[in-house]
């Protein structure tokens, strides 16, 4: 059979050929190249020969340490106050040229907290920006996945009715999906503009001028939220269509049977619609999660990771490293880390939603 498959199927191979070559060249090859490069010190353009450096790239990215700092005390054991607050030894003194702590060399403070008492616990990371990127990406995924899936389901339920002109609504909700994300991001940059943006104007008018104008993308506390809102809006129509396809596979007789039994709208949803959408829900959850982890274009167009790294993401960092800083091995290592994260989450989701018999 194998010989028949490979030999007497020449036309088939010829037709599949271009696609196979492109996929091999742009998906499969880069995938293995990235894994290989992440263990070297390869740069994009460099006169030096490539060296194998083991896990060094990963250590550089992921190295985290905690440090407990005791406040500075005087000879009598009393706290030395500085501007009314306890004074702590500087972290720099530990991380720069300190022969006692070679393990902390080059690390920076990521965040710190105190667990009661005077001591302060400091978490140090070798690459604070990358840590921020990981946290931001997870925040993005954790907000976008449920909110976007929920909104899309709501819209699908709304448009899954026989009403005059319902197709107009379907088209409207789907429209942002068709527009390129770059175009959408450019438009939303105008909407979010700090002075005369549409959003500020709208809020100002609605609140009779009592709400001050906010520079949505220029403020570290609102930038990520603004990008989350816009991203949800952009792709919600796509998932709405998937939900809609799921809704239409549910047999109308089941709804009739429920009507005869006297089920309320909520009970119909709870006992018939939602269980009938189980497989659709799994699909949507996995698709949204994967898309959300790939967050890049919006960041690149709207904020470039700023302000103050508040919108750094994993993919943005990978590209920033690999091409911006020409550190292709560092970028590759980030890609591999992202791959492991997404793979793990997909496996967990599959395990959680497995068919129980």
């Amino acid at each position: 059979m194998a010989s028949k498959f490979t030999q007497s199927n020449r036309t088939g191979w010829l037709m599949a050929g271009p696609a196979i070559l492109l996929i091999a060249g742009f998906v499969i090859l880069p995938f293995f190249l990235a894994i290989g490069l992440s263990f070297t010190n390869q740069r994009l353009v460099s006169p030096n020969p490539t060296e194998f450096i083991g896990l060094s790239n990963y250590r550089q990215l992921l190295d985290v340490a905690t440090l407990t700092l005791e406040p500075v005390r005087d000879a009598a054991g009393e706290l030395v106050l500085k501007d009314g607050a306890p004074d702590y030894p500087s972290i720099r003194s530990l991380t720069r040229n300190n022969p006692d702590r070679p393990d902390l060399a080059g690390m920076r403070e990521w965040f710190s907290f105190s667990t009661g008492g005077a001591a302060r616990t400091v978490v140090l990371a070798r690459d604070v920006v990358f840590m921020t990127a990981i946290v931001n990406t997870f925040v993005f995924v954790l907000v976008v996945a449920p909110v976007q899936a929920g909104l899309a389901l709501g819209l699908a339920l709304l448009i899954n009715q026989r009403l005059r002109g319902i197709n107009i609504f379907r088209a409207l909700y789907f429209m942002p999906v068709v527009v390129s994300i770059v175009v959408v991001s450019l438009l939303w940059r105008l909407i979010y503009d700090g002075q005369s943006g549409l959003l500020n104007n709208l809020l100002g008018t609605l609140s009779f001028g009592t709400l001050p104008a906010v520079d949505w993308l220029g403020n570290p506390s609102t930038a990520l939220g603004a990008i989350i809102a816009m991203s949800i809006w952009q792709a919600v129509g796509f998932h709405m269509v998937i939900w809609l396809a799921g809704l239409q596979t549910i047999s109308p007789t089941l709804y009739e049977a429920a009507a005869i039994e006297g089920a309320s709208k909520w009970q119909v949803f709870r006992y018939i619609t939602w269980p009938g959408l189980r497989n659709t829900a799994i699909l949507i959850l996995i698709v949204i999660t994967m898309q959300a982890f790939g967050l890049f274009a919006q960041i690149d167009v709207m904020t470039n990771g700023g302000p103050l790294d508040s919108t750094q993401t994993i993919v943005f960092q990978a590209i920033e490293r690999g091409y911006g800083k020409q550190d292709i091995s560092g970028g590759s290592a980030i890609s591999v880390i992202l791959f492991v994260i997404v793979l793990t989450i997909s496996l967990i989701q599959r395990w959680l939603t497995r068919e129980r018999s």
Partner: protein
Amino acid sequence: MARIQLKDLRKSYGNAHVIKGVDIDIEDGEFCVFVGPSGCGKSTLLRMIAGLEDITSGSLTIAERRVNDLPPAQRGVAMVFQSYAIFPHMTVRENVAFGLTIAGASKAEKAAKVAEAARILQMEHLLDRRPSQLSGGQRQRVAIGRAIVRQPKVFLFDEPLSNLDAALRMDMRMEIGKLHKALGATMIYVTHDQVEAMTLADKIVVLKDGQVMQIGTPMELYQNPANLFVAGFLGAPSMNFLKVTVQAVNGNTALVSNAALDPVEVSTRSASFKAGDAAILGLRPQYLSIAEAPGRLQGTVALTERLGAETMVEVKLKDDSSLIAALPQDVVFPVGAQVAFDFAADKAHLFAAP
């Protein structure tokens, strides 16, 4: 009590009139079967009673209460669907208890009623299975179980046996008949299968094109069909129709004949004829018997089907029309053989020519 009355019930989709004024009176505890060919509106009529289709005009009362505008749940009906409509993600137990869950019944009440329904339908061993693990007949039991736990006054069945194979259909038919006797509830049953109609019904309603053709007990309809449609629809094989001419009328009888039929005097029942009228003579295949020559009807054998206990003979008559006889024994006729039939005149039906 759950008497159901339909008065001049109509249903239209725009200009398409689907139900064209139906009057039916179904007594409490009666088993009423709506029967008719595909597209006659029988399912639509049932769905109007259930509340799944709007009623365009007319009045529908259940238990002396007008229910035209009530939602299905408030009409006190339970329905069994052709496709079973059991919920694929629930176990049999959850499916049967669905109506009680919706109504917020206690766990103990649910358990007791489900157990009772399972006992009646002999499906205790199926309660923890999922629908995908059930056969067609078992699924239909679950659907019926879901209907009976709520103890409704009225059961509606929409072609419940159509998706089952022939042997199972007969078993379930008997089950449904027993269920009706056990529960004593009013039941309306829609089918296109006249055997189900004849065996189950207290009252049959024959429908065609959204109109009632005849209402009566199975035997009334079989022995005294009001028109050609009912005569042809009930009974298998169908009644033979011969084009005849009325020779003479004498009180309640008429003398009819045609090229293949010797003159015979048959009852006119309620219809009125006069000499020279064209008419249709209806003869059930079972009432034809092989005659010693010459016999009333002569022809040549076109086809013989041997069923074992019965033999179906298709005969080409002298006037080129054909006729089927069901003979109650196993006989073999060579194709082309000359045969003659006799029949009892009082078993023949005379209808006005359409």
